[in-house]
Structures are given as structure tokens and as C-alpha cells.
């Protein structure tokens, strides 16, 4: 038997989490380096996965399969397609930056020695989330997926509730209450989604008799597994609801701004750039593959909700006074684009949506982490507390601007490629929807540039006058992310080649063909 590469990729950060947690309390720095080491080793394994994966080969590769709970038909089944590989790579890539950016976020406060901050715990939890996210991208057994989809809520809950942003207005008590609220809201929303999904998972078992994604999908495709229309629809809704909470899709989005606002910036990136991607990924993998007919049935409503997310999220972002909440609402708008691309059911839309997941991860990380550096310097998240920063910290301002430009999908940077693909893929099938979604590009420019103008330009506020520019550690976080944004904007081919065959499979799952151009159709 060959080396279980996928298991190893997911297990390595789990081992790292345990090792980090076990470092003695006094040796905080050692714990950080250990966590960083494990995250980099995981990245190396993810690279091996990407290299070993053959885009023109089988749909699922590097598969592993072991019996787990025989009576219940639950198997430990792993396998990746191009979409999975891309998202595993994204996750493994972002975690080292998240760790590096959060280097001091969990240091004990000197002034209040009573409030001990378990540094080891912070980094161990991040690695634990990484392990669970990676295995979610690998699982081809529905039940196995469900377990980790739910289990990752636990470390996330503690990361949000236990390690809040130190920059807050009002008293410590008040801040702690808000943090609890955010963490509990996050947990409740996702739990409710998860419970409904659990019902659907059990329902699926009742209908299909097993949990294997491949077996069920195959049986569905060749007609040996016939589902009643209503059953399929109900099961679809059960799955979709959970993913829509996680993604998040309007109107289930309100937990995200709270969570991202209260969490430290690196944890906010972990939420929106990594964990939420499991939601959109699962829509592509489970909803479309297991329930193709129901997916098509629900498409009109989902497209409208996605469209609302795009416009509504952007408008809300314009109205925010808190930098991190602004980024959160921008993300809601971007998730609208991803979901739009998935359900437009065209090759361009789905390739674009997958690419969007990757690019949004990188661009949000760049913007949010720089925002975090900014906030930690001034001790405030309010936009109005800043002004003229570019004069005192030009490198910080410059990187912030590039992160912002990526967020507004400037051509030449990676997000443009994916956003345009989603738009054109949507437009090809639903012109009106495509045109309305295009308004998103104007609104994105508005919230980004307003944020930049208010924080970075104008006369220097006295409170920011002595603000230091980016340090070496911070630059080491931001520079590679920006380089990636440029490289993937100019040469996205490696990712699209990885993703294209997987999209082709999904398109045939839902039995959809791309609309032909007029000129060809006329011939």
C-alpha cells in the first residue's frame, strides 16, 4: 500500500497542535516556532499533494479507503480532485502567515498578569482548525466530512471567544461580553446549520444505504438510485442550509461581522479565508454532485440570494465605521460572487468560483492582516480614529492599498481573473443577473477607496504621528501575499489547469452544457 499522503497532510497539523499545546507554559517562544514549523511542514506536504496530482488523471486521486464503522456504512475515505487540491494548498499556504501575523496576539498582558493568555493554546487551536479544514477538503465519505465540518466549530469557538482583539472601545468587561456574544453567535448559527445537515445526512443514509460520495453519485448518475423529487429537494436543502450559514449567504450572514470584528485579525482571516471556504467548497462537491436535480430546482432562489449578498454586503461595507467589520461585509459580498459562480452552472462560472475561493483567501488575508497591524499600533478599530497614516508609515499604507485594490478586483491582480470569470459565466446564462452583479465592482471601489482615504490620506492625526512602519516580521507576512496576488493575476494558468477538469466533471454531474455563442448557434 502506498504512503497515505492525504492522511499525513491532515494529521501533521493535528500532531503539531498537540505538540504545541504540550510546550511548557514558560517557553512561549518555543511554542510559536514549533507551530510555525508544523505549518510550514504541512505546506510542504500540500505542495507534494499538488505535484503528485495529475490534472488529466482520474477524478479523485491519492485516494485512501478503510472500513470504519461497518454496520453503518461509514468509511474512512479520502480523495482529492483539482478543486480540493487548490483549496488544501490555499489553507496550507495561509496558516504560516496567520501564525506569523498573530505572533504576539496571545502574549500575556504585562499590565494585567492575572489575565493569563495561553499562548500555546492559541497556536495549537489554529493548527487544529487547519487539520480539520484540510480533512474536510479530502473526505469523500459524507459522514466523515460531516464530523469534521462540525468539529472545527470547537477550536474556532475558543479562538473567537478566548482571544479577542485587544483594540476595543469601552471597558474590558464590555469587550469581553461582546466577544462572548460573537463567539456564541458563531457557534449557534453554525450548530443550527449543522444539526439540520445532520438530519439530512441521516436521511441520505436511509435513502442510499451508505455514505460514500462516489458510490452515491455513481448510482445517481446511472439511475440505479432513484430519489423521489421531494426527498431529493429536502435533502438538498438540509445540506445547503449548513453550507449557506458557513459561506455565509444572505440572510444568514450576520454572525460573520461580529466574529470577524471581535476576533484578532489573524483569526478573522482564519474564519473568512479558510474555514468559510469549506462551505462554498461543499456546495460544489456535495450539493451539485449528490442532488443535481434539486440544485437546478433551487438555482433561481439561490442566484437571487447571492445577488442580494453581493450588493447588500457591499452597501453595508460602505456604511461601516469599524475597519474589521468593513472587511467582513466585503467578504459577504465576495461570497455572493462565489455562490453565483457555482450556481450559474457554466464552466466559466464554476472555474471562476473555485479560483475566487483561492484568490479571495489571499486578498482578504493581505488586507485584513495589514489592517490588523494598523489596528494594533493605534489600539482602535474605528476608521475615524485614523488619518494621514501614509505620511508616517508609507510601506504600511502601500501594502494596505494593494490589499484594497485586490479586494476591488483590479485587473492585473488575482481576484480580477476570478471575478470576471464568474461574471461572464453568469452572464452567459442569466444576462440580467450578470449585469446586476457587475454593480458590485463599483461598490467595491467605493468601500475600499473610502476606507483608504479616511485612514491613510489627509492631514496626519496626532494619535498616529509616531506610528512605526511595518517591521520585518510583518513585511514577511505581507510581501509574499502581495507577490502571489500579482503572480496569480498575471499567470493564473497553474490553478485553472488544476481546476478545469474537476469543473468539467461537475458540469456533467448536473448535466449542463455551456450556452453556445450566438454566432456559433446560428450556424
Amino acid at each position, binding site marked *: 500500500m502506498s504512503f497515505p499522503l492525504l492522511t499525513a497532510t491532515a494529521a501533521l497539523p493535528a500532531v503539531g497542535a498537540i505538540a504545541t499545546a504540550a510546550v511548557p507554559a514558560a517557553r512561549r517562544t518555543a511554542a510559536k516556532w514549533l507551530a510555525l514549523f508544523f505549518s510550514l511542514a504541512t505546506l510542504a506536504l500540500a505542495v507534494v499533494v499538488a505535484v503528485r496530482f495529475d490534472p488529466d488523471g482520474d477524478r479523485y486521486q491519492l485516494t485512501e479507503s478503510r472500513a470504519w464503522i461497518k454496520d453503518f456504512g461509514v468509511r474512512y475515505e479520502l480523495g482529492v480532485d483539482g478543486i480540493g487540491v487548490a483549496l488544501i494548498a490555499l489553507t496550507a499556504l495561509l496558516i504560516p502567515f496567520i501564525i506569523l501575523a498573530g505572533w504576539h496576539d496571545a502574549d500575556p498582558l504585562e499590565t494585567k498578569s492575572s489575565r493569563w493568555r495561553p499562548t500555546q493554546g492559541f497556536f495549537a487551536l489554529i493548527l487544529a482548525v487547519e487539520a480539520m479544514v484540510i480533512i474536510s477538503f479530502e473526505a469523500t465519505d459524507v459522514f466523515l466530512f460531516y464530523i469534521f465540518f462540525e468539529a472545527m466549530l470547537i477550536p474556532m469557538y475558543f479562538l473567537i471567544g478566548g482571544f479577542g482583539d485587544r483594540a476595543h472601545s469601552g471597558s474590558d468587561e464590555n469587550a469581553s461580553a461582546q466577544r462572548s456574544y460573537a463567539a456564541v453567535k458563531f457557534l449557534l448559527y453554525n450548530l443550527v446549520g449543522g444539526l439540520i445537515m445532520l438530519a439530512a445526512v441521516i436521511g441520505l443514509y436511509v435513502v442510499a444505504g451508505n455514505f460514500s460520495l462516489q458510490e452515491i453519485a455513481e448510482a445517481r448518475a446511472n439511475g440505479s438510485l432513484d430519489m423521489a423529487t421531494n426527498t431529493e429537494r429536502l435533502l438538498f436543502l438540509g445540506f445547503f442550509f449548513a453550507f449557506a450559514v458557513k459561506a455565509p449567504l444572505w440572510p444568514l450572514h450576520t454572525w460573520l461581522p461580529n466574529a470577524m470584528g471581535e476576533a484578532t485579525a489573524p483569526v478573522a482571516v482564519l474564519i473568512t479565508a479558510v474555514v468559510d471556504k469549506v462551505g462554498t467548497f461543499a456546495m460544489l462537491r456535495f450539493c451539485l454532485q449528490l442532488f443535481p436535480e434539486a440544485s437546478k430546482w433551487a438555482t433561481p432562489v439561490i442566484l437571487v440570494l447571492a445577488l442580494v449578498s453581493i450588493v447588500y454586503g457591499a452597501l453595508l461595507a460602505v456604511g461601516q465605521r469599524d475597519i474589521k467589520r468593513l472587511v467582513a461585509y466585503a467578504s459577504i459580498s465576495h461570497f455572493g460572487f462565489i455562490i453565483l459562480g457555482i450556481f450559474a452552472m457554466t*464552466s466559466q462560472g464554476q472555474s471562476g468560483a473555485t479560483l475566487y475561493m483561492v484568490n479571495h483567501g489571499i486578498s482578504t488575508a493581505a488586507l485584513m492582516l495589514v489592517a490588523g497591524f494598523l489596528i494594533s499600533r493605534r489600539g482602535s478599530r474605528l476608521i475615524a480614529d485614523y488619518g494621514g497614516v501614509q505620511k508616517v508609515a508609507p510601506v504600511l499604507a502601500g501594502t494596505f492599498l494593494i490589499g484594497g485594490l485586490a479586494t476591488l478586483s483590479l485587473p*492585473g491582480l488575482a481576484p480580477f481573473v476570478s471575478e470576471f470569470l464568474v461574471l461572464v459565466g453568469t452572464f452567459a446564462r442569466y444576462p440580467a443577473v450578470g449585469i446586476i452583479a457587475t454593480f458590485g465592482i463599483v461598490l467595491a471601489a467605493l468601500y475600499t477607496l473610502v476606507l483608504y482615504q479616511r485612514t491613510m490620506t489627509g492631514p496626519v492625526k496626532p494619535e498616529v504621528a509616531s506610528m512605526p512602519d511595518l517591521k520585518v516580521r510583518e513585511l514577511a507576512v505581507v510581501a509574499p501575499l502581495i507577490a502571489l496576488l500579482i503572480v496569480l493575476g498575471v499567470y493564473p494558468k497553474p490553478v485553472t489547469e488544476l481546476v478545469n477538469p474537476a469543473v468539467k466533471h461537475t458540469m456533467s454531474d448536473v448535466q449542463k452544457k455551456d450556452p453556445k455563442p*450566438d454566432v456559433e448557434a446560428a450556424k
Partner: protein
Amino acid sequence: MDTENLIALLVAAPLLGAAVLLCGGRRLDRVGHWIGTALAAVSFVIGLVLFTDMLGKGAEDRSLHQHLFSWIPVEGFQADVAFQLDQLSVTFVLLISGVGTLIHLYSIGYMEHDERRRRFFGYLNLFLAAMLLLVLADNYLLLYVGWEGVGLASYLLIGFWQHKPSAATAAKKAFLVNRVGDMGLSIAIMLMFTTFGTFAFEPVLEATGETSEGKLTAIGLMLLLAACGKSAQVPLQSWLGDAMEGPTPVSALIHAATMVTAGVYLIVRSGEIFNGAPDAQLAVTVVGAVTLLFGAIVGCAKDDIKKALAGSTMSQIGYMILAAGLGPIGYVFAIMHLVTHGFFKAGLFLGAGSVMHGMNDEVDMRKYGGLRKYMPVTFVTFGLGYLAIIGFPGLSGFFSKDKIIEAAFAKGGTEGWILGSVALLGAAITAYYMTRVMLLTFFGEKRWQPDAEGNAPHPHESPKSMTIPMILLAFGSVFAGGFFSVGDRFMHWLEPVTHHDHGDSPLSAATVTGATMVVLVIGVTLAWLQYGRRPVPVVAPRGSLLTRAARRDLLQDDFNHVVLVRGGEHLTRSLVYVDHTLVDGVVNGTAASVGGLSGRLRKLQNGYARSYAVSMFGGAAVLIAATLLMRAV
């Protein structure tokens, strides 16, 4: 060596400059401006090499292609990084890199005392790279990259003095208004994709005959929207006046000679689409005609020298757009006017910058007066630019503008008469406002006074690095038009790309020229009566209703402010409220009532909800575990 391999270098040289200057750090401060200027010059030299090479070939073999790599390969969707150099793009390349290099040179002196000069040159290089990409792309999506890249460079340069809130606001406004236009370009590309299955120039423009007029009209209108944004045409013109917040060389390069002409390029490049869509063409001519009057009227009322020139730019580009909307009768003249305008408007702006340089950055023309004695070189070069723009016989503007007016009449029918008359009227107003600028600045009594701190300006001529570019541009302003027109040289040069049609003018060429001369004299005389014969008050008189409206950009900004800005603020504010109370409340409420958590959710601090969450989660876990275990055993 195959010459087509040089095309990418045109873009690469300034791009390299931008990268080096922006990432290079302070150690490049002392040489940065020379690096930037040299790389701009490299682009110009390569452009000249390619141009000479092209001249040596037959008219039909002049188009060159260079395919670099496949950019976005996705099922059914093919976007390449590939270039196309033909007569049209090489004309732009020479204009952009030529005027661009001169303006780099000028900026060395102009920005001498700015501590961020290196960065300024980085942005200028970035601009050149984007603009060259825009005109060299062989497909609309790559053009889009240049298109927005130009927008970015313009944003950075308008807001270069970011510590000034007005500059930061102007930069943001320019980017946003342009984005509205960019939406048009996006939608046009999507339409092309669904109609033709591609958005590369050649296959799209060859297949226009195979689709319906309705589709072509839709694509044409979206392209027009894009052009309105970038070329500051009504209704997306409002950003250009504010863009004058940027350093003056920026106004000369970007907001007069190059970036704002991108819309004209887009329309002329897409000629076949417009030729098949008369309704879209009509819309183009209407936009052009309205803008040429709009800009001219605004130009008459401004006391800020740069804003007066900005109004003029808008108006002159209106002429080009009008010409481009006329179809094959006008394409050649649109581009010809674009090139001559590039010379004289860049020259005028550099002249204005030179005046400001000597006047402690004062921009109010009412505080100038009599400057011809103090800055003779500026006076002469500015004067030649002035004569060129008003269409003084024999100078550049005379040839190019006259042709446009003629072509407008040649459109035929009532439309032809209306468009032709508007173009003539525009010529009269141009003569009026430019004469006003000239008189206020260089003639009459000196009107400047010490400022609040007692610093009186000491007007003086600018250094050589500034005057040499002005002199060279003045040469272009004087001779370019004549050179192009001898034997219809320019027309024959561009014809293989744009095609040409003489149209059927109801008026003879001599009649049109005669009429143009008459309106020119009227315009100049009126201005002289008002500003030359009488002393000019330092404080602007209240003025008529129209003057006051024109000073406020014909109230368009006020409209935008009330409707878009205020309306938008109310919308977002109420949405924030709705999100917080309604959406959040309803979803929480539903969840709460379903989960039986009603009422307690609001008291999260009590820990109730948390214990519920934990018990819910725990319960689920126990349930799953129990089921699994029982089954497994």
C-alpha cells in the same frame, strides 16, 4: 531579429521602471527620476524602430502580432496576453511615449523640491506601461487591464499630494466615476463573449456581419459608456475638473494628452461594431456634441487656469468622440485631432505649470496679468499652443478641427446640419475662452499681490529642463497638422485600419473653412472686448446665471452630491440599521423560537445561551457517538 518581438519591450521598459522605483527605497532617491525618464525614452526609441520598420512595408503587411502566453485558459474561454501593433496602435505608441518622455523630463525640474519625487516617477512609469498595454493589447480583456491600470496610475497621481484632503477626494472620485465606465467595458466584453465566443479584436471585428444590429447596438452603447468614463464625456465628465488637484505634469500627460484619449481609441478600434449599429453611432455623436459644448462653456467661466484648460480638454475630446461617432467619415480625423491635440494641450498645460512655478503655485488667472514680460519662453510656446487650439490658419488645430467640422456636415440630413453647427459653435467658444486665458495670463496689468504672509511672487522663467519640452511640444503644435495634411498623408497611413469614406457634404470645404474663420474672429473679438480692452477685476464679478452655473460645472456636481452622495449615505445608513435590527433580529428570532431559546438569546451575558449551545452540541455528539457505537458493536 523579428521586429514583433520588440512589442512587449514597449510595455516592459516602463513597467520595470515602476517596479524598481516603487520597491527600490530611499537609496534610489537621487537617481530615480533619471531612471524613470530613461526608461520612458527607451520605450519611445523602440516605438520609433518599430515605426520605421513599418514604413518600409506595404500598407497591408504592416500589422504585427506577438503572442506571449495564454492568460486565462478555461473551458470555452480563451484570454491571451498577446499584442497587436498596427498603424493605429503605433500612432498611439509614439504619442504616448514621445509626449510621455518629454513630460518625464519636465517633471525633473517641476518636482525638484518634492521629497517623494522618486515615487512620482514610479507612478509616471506605471502610467506609461498601462497606457501602452491599453493600445497594444490584441483583445478587449487585456485592453481592460491597461484601461484600469491607467485608472490606477491616474488615481495615484491625482492624489499624489495625499495630505491635501481635496487631492485625496479628487483621486477617489476619478477612480469611482471611471469604474462606472468600466462597468460598461465589462458588460461589453461579456456581450462579445456570448455573441461571438471570443473577445479578441480580429475575430470579433470580422464577425460583426454575422450578428444582429440589436446586439451590436448593445455592445456599442456599453463601449460608449466605457469611453465616457475614461474620456470624461457627459454624463461621466465630473471627475476631470477635480483631477487638476494632481501635479501639473500629470494634468498634461494624463488628463490632456493620453489617458483621456483612450475612449476615442476604444471607439475607433471597435469601428466595425459601430459601423453596424447606427443607433449607437448616433449616441456617440450626441455625447460628443453635448460634451464639446459643455466643456467649452465650463472653460469660459473658470478662473483657475488648470480648470479652464480641463474644460477645454473635455471639449476637444468631445470633438474627437463626435468624429468617431460619424463612422468611416470621421475615424481618421478623430485620431488626427487626438494627435495634434496631444501636442498643443500638453504644451498648454506645461506652460500653465511653468506659470504656476513662477507664481508660488497660484492658479487664479485673475491674479496673473502681464506675464509675457517675465516669462518670454513660456509666453511664446503657450501662445503657439493657443493659436493651434483655436485653429489659427496653418497651425495644427486648424487642419484637424476643420476636418471634423466638415465631416460633421458630411454626415448628411438634419443630423449633419445640427452636428456641424454645434461643432462650429464650439469653435467660436473655444476661440473665446482660450483668448480669455491668454489675455488674463500674459497681457494687461500685473495683478498679483503679496499673500497673507507677505510673500509676493517673483515671476521668472522656468529652468531648461522645463522649457525644452515646452519648445518641442510647440513645434508639434505648429507643424504636425500641416505635415499630416500634405497629400492627406495621415489619412493614407490610417486608412488600412480604420477605412475612410468621404461622405457627402452639403457644404464645400472652402465654405466650412470660411465659416470657421468667421466664428474664430467673433470668438477672439468678444474675449478681447471683455478682457483685453478693460482692466480685469481681481475678484470675479457675480456674473450671470449661466456664468455662475458654469463655474459650478453646470451644476452636475451638485446634482451628483444631492442624488448619489446624499442618497447613497441615507441608503447605507438605513441598511446598516436594517441589518442590525431586522435581518439579525429575524434570523435570531426564528432560530430562537425554533430552538426554544426565545428571550434568553438576548441575555447572552447570563451564560444561558452558552450553556444551551454547549448542551446542544454535546447532545448531538453523544447522540452520534451512541448510534455509532451501538451499530459498531
